[in-house]
């Protein structure tokens, strides 16, 4: 079976390409594929009729529980026959139907149809439920593509989306059910699931599994309250409607329910639910069928009603119900597909599908009229058509089941309506006189006529010569569904039975409906409450509500005010920390005895004062200065606590920030009164304060933890021995954790790239005129520049042993250039550099990386530094110096990129 499917898949992709070459006859060629498949399946008949099951299995993704297992039993076999047989006819019909479309579209349509066929076959053959879902969802997607095939029409697109929402939503329910089954049983085998139904039901997931299966089935088979997508799906080209939306796809829900009937029956509410839903569906659909104005929508509603009947039959207990279900499934597939073909032909011929506008087509479309008549007779359940037999089965099943009469009454009524609809759709377009002239655009052709005629005749032939089909298809199917062999007697005449009497009642009421269709139709159409009853409205409303919710949500969440976003984020952080603390319930540790040192405390408080002043400042410059004050205080704090490297770096950074930010502040207004409302300010204050409070508590605990600093101690011991440096911090930066530093250097390099891109240099003359500077500064700037540059080199060189290094060296060098650019303009500073800052960055990054490479020749890891100690009073030399030099160059180049860029930008 896998081979069949694979071949079919390949054929589905390739064969329809014929339609790009061949015109009308393409359908006939393409139909070879389904008919060949049909033949292949018929070859299995000998197995199936013995009641055997053919299984195949390959491993696919065992750890997902996904196996390529297929299972052909009577029920699948019946489906396969319908899928391939009707599929063949649909392809033929499509060839004749799509004559108005360009060839490539015809080809695409046929591809979709064949792909759909493969997907259907896969669904009914799959034994592994994940595999079934795969095909099941494929049918939904292909249905989406086919409904929207006429994609220029907004109605098609809307209908396609609606159908996808409902059926794929149902697919999700199936996925959920499958996942739960896998959860309980540890397997995704459908047979296992059905066999071990009691186990499923005994688990926690029993009811959800059954409910999800029902939802999946109801959506696919258009049961109340999910039925509304099907009439809309009639936007699909008619061959697709015939195939997907009446004969095959919509029956997948029935397939699923029938397969899981034992499990469903195991719950107290399973059968009841099926029957109630089915009855509601039937009534609603019957009513809507009478109100339908177009040929196709009348068929669509009658299809829904028929699907209701099938669900009802699944719900009823007893063997007769299974027999009836299979019989009706077959009969319906045959006559409904035929009727759809006829509807398509009428639409194709006249360009209109409105029943009231049609009439007298029997002359122009005689074969279509014949096929329609035959199929309608079957649909109406008139003997000797198959529809009659299946109706007899239906009534028998209801009488035999343990149920009350209410469903029977509904069935009678609905069947009567079916008779009425059958009458109307045959008489109205073909036999009654037209109300106005009906223009014929296309006549009949073989491709358009043969399929419906064949199907309609099949309905007659099977009922008259039922033996073969009963033996190979119906009986095995019933046995598969019911679980054991059941005697099936397919015959037109069983003598005078209660069922016959019911049939007579049905036909009588049906005849009345045909006669009074017009007034009935008009009255029903006028009746507004029925529109209200339409769940389509409800669905649309809920979709609209969802969209409104979406828009509202987006508007609320993405309001465009960054401050609101950040407030949410900070509040989120606080909430998370508080939650974590509450859950951890650990006691708060406090730092040990650690006397307050007056000077340090004062410095810290100055830092706090600066921060608070910055937060309060109305003026941006004042805020910047206050931030600088805090930076200063923190730098002094570092100094007081044994961190000279940090201190000097912090001081340098503060100075550079002043230099760079003043360029920005030069162009913007400094006075920036708050735009936050008072309440908002208070809220923000609370958020900020709560974060601060939480962090305070947490930091206390951190400091209170016993301090084990294994890595830091190691660094202290090894810095000189292994890293040849007295300054442990620098050795960590360039050697022990040189890779961090390389990453950080890359950050700076990339920042420089960004700066160069955003602040691209212009060739305009430098507008910063020297005369606007105090002459003292102008004159002193050169010596200062050299002084700072020299200092930076000293800092760089000594960094390995004394406070300093590449970072701070580079920053100080940047300050040197800042002096020059402030005093003499950017142009002169840039000239003093004798290179572009970005080039410097590139060279520096190259140096830093290169410094780590030589050792790799010896097989050591990247960034293993090499040392050369010449002795004799000469300084030791190592690749770390190269590394630090690289860092120096990157930092210098990057800062200058921004410095020059911002100053140029400010001078514009």
């Amino acid at each position, binding site marked *: 079976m896998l081979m069949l499917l694979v071949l079919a898949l390949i054929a589905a992709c390739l064969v329809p390409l014929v339609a790009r070459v061949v015109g009308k006859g393409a359908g006939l060629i393409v139909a070879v594929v389904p008919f060949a498949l049909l033949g292949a399946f018929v070859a299995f008949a000998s197995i199936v009729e013995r009641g055997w099951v053919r299984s195949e299995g390959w491993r696919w993704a065992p750890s997902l529980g996904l196996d390529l297992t297929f299972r052909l039993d009577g029920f699948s076999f019946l489906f396969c026959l319908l899928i391939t047989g009707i599929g063949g006819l649909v392809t033929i019909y499509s060839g004749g139907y799509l004559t108005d479309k360009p060839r490539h579209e015809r080809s695409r349509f046929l591809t979709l149809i064949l792909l759909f066929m493969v997907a259907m076959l896969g669904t009914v053959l799959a034994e592994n439920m994940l595999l079934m879902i795969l095909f099941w969802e494929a049918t939904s997607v292909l249905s989406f593509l086919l409904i929207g095939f006429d994609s220029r029409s907004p109605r098609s697109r809307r209908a396609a989306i609606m159908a996808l929402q409902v059926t794929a939503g149902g697919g999700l329910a199936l996925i959920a059910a499958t996942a739960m089954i896998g959860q309980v049983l540890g397997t995704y085998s459908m047979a296992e699931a059905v066999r071990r139904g009691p186990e499923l039901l005994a688990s926690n997931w029993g009811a959800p599994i059954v409910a999800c299966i029902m939802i999946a089935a109801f959506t696919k088979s258009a049961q109340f309250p999910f039925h509304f997508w099907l009439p809309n799906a009639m936007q699909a080209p008619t061959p697709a409607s015939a195939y997907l939306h009446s004969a095959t796809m919509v029956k997948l829900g029935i397939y699923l329910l029938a397969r899981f009937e034992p499990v469903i029956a195991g719950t107290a509410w399973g059968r009841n639910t099926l029957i109630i839903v089915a009855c509601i569906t039937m009534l609603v659909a019957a009513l809507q069928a009478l109100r339908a104005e177009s040929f196709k929508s009348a068929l669509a509603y009658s299809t829904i009603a028929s699907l209701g009947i099938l669900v009802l039959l699944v719900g009823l207990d007893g063997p007769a119900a299974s027999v009836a279900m299979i019989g009706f499934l077959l009969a319906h597939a045959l006559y409904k597909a035929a009727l759809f073909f006829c509807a398509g032909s009428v639409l194709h011929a006249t360009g209109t599908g409105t029943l009231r506008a049609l009439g007298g087509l029997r002359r122009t479309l005689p074969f279509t009229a014949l096929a329609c008549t035959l199929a309608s007779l079957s649909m109406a359940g008139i003997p000797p058509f198959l529809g009659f037999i299946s109706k007899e089965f239906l009534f028998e099943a209801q009488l035999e089941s343990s149920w009350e009469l209410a469903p029977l009454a509904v069935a009678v009524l609905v069947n009567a309506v079916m008779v009425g609809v059958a009458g109307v759709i045959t008489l109205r377009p073909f036999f009654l006189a037209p109300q106005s002239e009906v223009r014929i655009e296309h006549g009949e052709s073989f491709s358009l006529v043969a399929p419906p005629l064949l199907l309609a005749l099949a309905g007659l032939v099977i009922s008259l010569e039922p033996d073969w089909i009963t033996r190979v298809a119906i009986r095995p199917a019933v046995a598969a569904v019911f679980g054991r062999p059941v005697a099936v007697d397919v015959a037109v005449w069983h003598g005078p039975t209660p069922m016959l009497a019911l049939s007579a009642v049905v036909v009588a009421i049906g005849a009345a409906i045909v006669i009074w269709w017009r007034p009935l139709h008009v009255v029903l159409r006028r009746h507004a409450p029925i529109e209200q009853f339409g769940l389509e409205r409800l669905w649309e409303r809920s979709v609209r509500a969802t969209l409104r919710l979406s828009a509202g949500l987006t508007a609320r969440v993405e309001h465009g*005010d960054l*401050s609101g976003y*950040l*407030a949410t984020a900070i509040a989120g952080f606080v909430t998370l920390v508080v939650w974590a603390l509450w859950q951890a319930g650990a006691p708060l540790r406090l*730092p040990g005895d650690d006397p*307050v040192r007056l000077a*340090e*405390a004062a410095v*810290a408080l100055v*830092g*706090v004062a600066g*921060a*608070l002043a*910055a*937060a309060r400042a109305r003026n*941006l410059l004042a*805020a910047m200065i206050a*931030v600088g004050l*805090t930076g200063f205080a923190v730098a002094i704090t*570092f100094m007081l606590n*044994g961190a000279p490297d940090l201190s000097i*770096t*912090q001081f340098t950074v503060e100075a550079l*920030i002043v230099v*760079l*930010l003043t*360029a*920005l502040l030069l*162009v*913007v207004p400094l006075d*920036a009164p*708050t*735009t936050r409302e008072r309440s908002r300010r208070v809220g*923000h204050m609370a*958020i*900020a*304060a709560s974060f*601060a409070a939480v962090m305070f508590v947490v*930091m206390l605990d951190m*400091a209170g933890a016993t*301090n084990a*600093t294994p890595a*830091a101690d190691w660094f202290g011991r090894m*810095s*000189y*021995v292994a890293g040849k*440096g*007295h*300054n*442990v*911090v620098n050795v960590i930066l360039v050697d022990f954790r040189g890779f*961090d530093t390389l990453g950080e250097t890359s*950050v*700076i390099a990339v*920042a420089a790239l960004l700066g160069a891109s955003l*602040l691209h240099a212009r060739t305009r003359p430098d507008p910063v005129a020297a005369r606007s500077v105090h002459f003292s500064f102008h004159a002193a700037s050169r010596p200062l520049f050299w002084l700072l540059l020299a200092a930076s080199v000293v800092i760089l060189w000594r960094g390995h042993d004394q406070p300093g290094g590449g970072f701070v060296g580079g920053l100080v060098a940047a300050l040197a250039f800042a002096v020059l650019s402030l005093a003499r303009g950017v142009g002169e500073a840039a000239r003093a550099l004798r290179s572009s800052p970005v080039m410097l960055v590139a060279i520096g990054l190259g140096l830093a990386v290169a410094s780590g490479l030589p050792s790799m020749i010896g097989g050591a890891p990247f960034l293993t530094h090499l040392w050369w100690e010449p002795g004799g009073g000469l300084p030791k030399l190592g690749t770390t110096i190269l590394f630090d030099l690289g860092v120096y160059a990157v930092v210098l180049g990057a*800062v200058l990129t*921004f410095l020059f860029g911002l100053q140029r*930008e*400010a001078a514009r």
Partner: protein
Amino acid sequence: MTILYALTAAAIMGAALYMILSRNMIRILLGLALLSTGVNLMIFLAGDFSSRQPPLIREGQQVLDEAADPLAQALILTAIVIGFALTVVLATIVMRGWRATGSLDVRRPDAPEQPDDPELRGPDAD
């Protein structure tokens, strides 16, 4: 002293966050710079800072005496420089934003601009 430093770091972070919640881009920028200062102080607290001796091995010695935590200092140094780089990048972006819109307000409709240009075709056409 530790408690006081914890308080200081927390207060700096709090003030920084309050600034970040402003609607003025430059305040946000300054707030972020301040925030990184606060966090740096926090890392400092995370290290062992019981000693006030710098982590510099004395001349002629091979091993570090009792000194402040060198690893924490190395981390902070990295953090300071990265924070500085980001502050400057942000300043550049703010500068560009000011040049483009003449506004420092961060509020703006979140629907982005739609330069629908049917003739737009070059590779750099956004």
